[in-house]
C-alpha cells in the first residue's frame, strides 16, 4: 500500500530526471543559504579593567580579571544596530561605538555602566572605521565619505563640531602627528586634514585602497599598506611618496612601527619587517595563513595573528613562533590588556580569548543569555 495512486507513482518514475534535478537544485539552495553568515568580524578594545568586544547586535564589556560579562549594549538587540569596528575609549570614561547596520548610529556609552551618554545619527553610511580621539575631539570617518568631528566640550547631546567631505568610503581609523589628522580612503587617497581650519591641507594619491590605519613616526614619515600590494612611505614634510616596497599580497591591516622597525602582514600569508628606509629588517616569514590584522607589541614581543587562527610572537629579530592555535579565524587585531593578549576569533568556539605572553589561555568569554 502506498499513500499515492499508482498512476502518480508511474508518472513520477517517468519524470525521474526532473525530480532528480529538483533535488539537486534544492541541495544547492540549502548549501547557499543554510548557514547564516555574520556580517563581519568583531571589533576589540581594552582598558585597564575591561575588554570591549563589538560583535553583531551587541557590544560586551568583559572583566579582565576573570572574563565575566560586566554589561552589554544595548540590553536588547536592535535590528538596525550592528557593531563590528573596534570600540574606542575616551579620557573621560566613555566608549565610542559605531553601527554598521542599517541604523547609522554613532554612540558614546559610559564605560562603567554601559548606559548611553550621547549619540549621533546624521551620517548616511556605516561606521566601519574606529574614531581617533585627540584631547577632547573625536575624528570619526564614515563610509559616506565624510569625516565627522565631535567636540566633547560641547554641552548637551549634539556634539558635532564640524564635518568634512573627503569622498570615497572611509574604512580606516585616522592617525595624527599632532599637526594633521591623516585619513586614508578606499578610493586610493591619503588626506591630511588640518583640525584648526577643518579643511584638507593636502591629498596624496596612493597605489591602491588603504583599509588600515597608517603609522606615523616622529620624523614626519607616514607608513601605509595598500591593496596595490605595497607598503608606501610618505614624507609628510614634502607631501610626497618617499618609497614604496612591493609585497606579495594585498596589505589590509595597518603597519606597526616599533623603534625603527616596521612590521606588517599581507593576504598572501607573509610577515615583513622593514627599517624606516624600506630595507628588509630580517627574513620575510611565512606563517600558516593570510594576515589581515595589524600586529601588536607587548613587552619585547611583536604579536600577529593569521586567518587560520594562529597567534604568533616574534622577539629580538628571531623567527616568529606559534604561541597558540585556536578554533575560528583571526581577522581582528590582537589587543594588549596588562600582561594579557586578547584575541577575538571569528566563527570560533569563543568570542574572546585571553592569553598570557607564553600563549597559555587565561580565560575565555562566551556571552550568556
Amino acid at each position: 500500500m502506498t499513500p499515492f495512486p499508482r498512476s502518480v507513482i508511474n508518472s513520477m518514475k517517468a519524470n525521474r530526471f526532473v525530480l532528480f534535478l529538483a533535488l539537486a537544485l534544492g541541495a544547492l539552495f540549502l548549501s547557499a543559504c543554510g548557514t547564516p553568515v555574520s556580517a563581519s568580524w568583531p571589533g576589540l578594545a581594552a582598558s585597564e579593567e575591561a575588554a570591549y568586544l563589538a560583535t553583531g547586535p551587541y557590544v560586551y564589556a568583559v572583566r579582565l580579571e576573570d572574563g565575566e560579562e560586566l554589561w552589554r549594549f544595548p540590553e536588547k538587540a536592535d535590528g538596525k544596530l550592528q557593531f563590528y569596528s573596534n570600540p574606542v575609549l575616551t579620557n573621560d570614561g566613555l566608549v565610542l561605538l559605531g553601527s554598521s547596520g542599517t541604523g547609522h548610529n554613532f554612540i558614546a556609552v559610559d564605560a562603567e555602566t554601559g548606559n548611553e551618554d550621547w549619540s549621533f545619527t546624521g551620517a548616511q553610511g556605516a561606521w566601519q572605521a574606529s574614531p581617533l580621539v585627540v584631547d577632547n575631539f573625536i575624528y570619526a570617518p564614515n563610509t559616506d565619505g565624510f569625516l565627522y568631528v565631535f567636540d566633547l566640550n560641547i554641552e548637551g547631546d549634539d556634539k558635532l563640531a564640524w564635518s568634512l567631505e573627503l569622498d570615497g568610503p572611509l574604512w580606516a581609523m585616522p592617525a595624527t602627528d599632532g599637526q594633521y589628522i591623516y585619513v586614508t580612503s578606499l578610493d586610493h587617497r591619503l588626506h591630511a586634514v588640518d583640525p584648526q581650519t577643518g579643511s584638507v591641507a593636502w591629498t596624496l594619491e596612493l597605489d591602491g585602497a588603504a583599509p588600515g590605519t597608517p603609522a606615523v613616526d616622529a620624523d614626519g614619515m607616514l607608513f601605509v599598506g595598500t591593496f596595490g600590494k605595497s607598503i608606501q612611505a610618505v614624507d609628510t614634510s614634502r607631501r610626497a611618496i618617499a618609497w614604496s616596497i612591493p609585497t606579495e599580497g594585498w596589505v589590509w591591516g595597518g603597519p606597526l612601527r616599533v623603534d625603527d622597525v616596521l612590521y606588517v602582514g599581507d593576504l598572501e600569508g607573509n610577515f615583513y619587517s622593514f627599517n624606516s628606509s624600506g630595507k628588509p629588517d630580517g627574513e620575510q616569514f611565512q606563517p600558516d595563513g593570510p594576515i589581515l590584522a595589524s600586529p601588536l607589541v607587548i613587552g619585547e614581543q611583536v604579536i600577529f595573528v593569521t586567518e587560520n587562527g594562529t597567534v604568533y610572537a616574534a622577539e629580538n629579530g628571531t623567527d616568529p613562533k606559534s604561541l597558540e592555535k585556536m578554533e575560528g579565524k583571526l581577522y581582528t587585531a590582537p589587543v594588549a590588556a596588562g600582561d594579557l593578549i586578547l584575541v577575538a576569533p571569528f566563527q570560533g568556539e569563543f568570542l574572546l580569548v585571553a592569553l598570557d605572553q607564553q600563549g597559555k589561555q587565561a580565560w575565555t568569554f562566551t556571552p550568556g543569555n
Partner: protein
Amino acid sequence: MSPWDLFVSLFVNVLLWIYDVVGQNFGLAIILFTILTRIVTWPLNASQMKSTKVMQDLQNDKEWQDIQKKYAKDREKLAQEQMRIYRERGVNPFASCLPTLIQLPIIFALYQSITRSLATTPLSLLQLTRSISSFLDVSSLIPLNSKFLWMDLGQPEFVPVFGFNLPTLAIVVALTTYIQTKLTTPPSSNPNDQSAAMARSMSLTMPLMLGWFALTFPSGLAVYFVTSNLLGIAQYAMMGKANWRSLLPGGSKPVTPAKPSKK
C-alpha cells in the same frame, strides 16, 4: 571553495568585467548583466511561458472539467484520467516548473554576486577579493563606484519628498512586478481552477514581497528587479502572449473555454 561559491564567483567576475568595460558604472553593469542573463535564459523563459499557457488552457477545457466533476470522489481514477489527457495532448505537467527550477539558482547567484560586489562590510570585501580572477585588475576596481543616477547602490533607496523619505524604487519594483504577473496570467473561466486562484494570489504577494526586498536591501538589487521585470514584460509581449486587458479594471474577463479535442 564550495561549488556554490564558484558559481557565484563566476557571476561576480562577469559583473565586474562589464563594470570595467562600461567605465566603472555599477548601475549600468547590473542592467547589462541582467539583460545578458535574460538572453541566456530566453529559451527557458519562453518554454515556461508556453507551458504555463498550455496548462492554463487545459484548466478551461471541457473534457478536463468534466473528469474533475465525474471523479471528484475517486482520486486515483481522477489522476489516471488526468494522466491520460496529458498523454493525449502531449502535455508535460512538469514542463512549466522545470525552467523555473533551473532559473532559480541563476537569480539567487545574481543577487549574491551583486551584494558581494558591493562589498559593504570588511567580510564581504574579503570574500570579493577571493572571488575575482586574475584577468581583472581588481586593485584598480576597488572600491566599486556604487553611485548610479540619484542612488547609492549599496544602500536602500529613498527620495526625500516634503521631509518624507519616499522609497521610489521599491514602488517601481512592486508596480512592474504586478504588471508582469498580471500580463502573464491568462484569465480563466473555471471558478474551480486552482492554478488561476494561485496566480491571482501570486499577483498580489509577489509585488509586495519584491517591493519589501527593494525597500530593505541595497538598491542595486532593486535595479536588477526592475530591469528583469521590464525584460520579462517585453519578452512576453514579443511572444504575443501579453494580456494587456488584464491591467484594466474589470479586464480579467474569462476567455472562451477551449473546445475539447477529438479522441
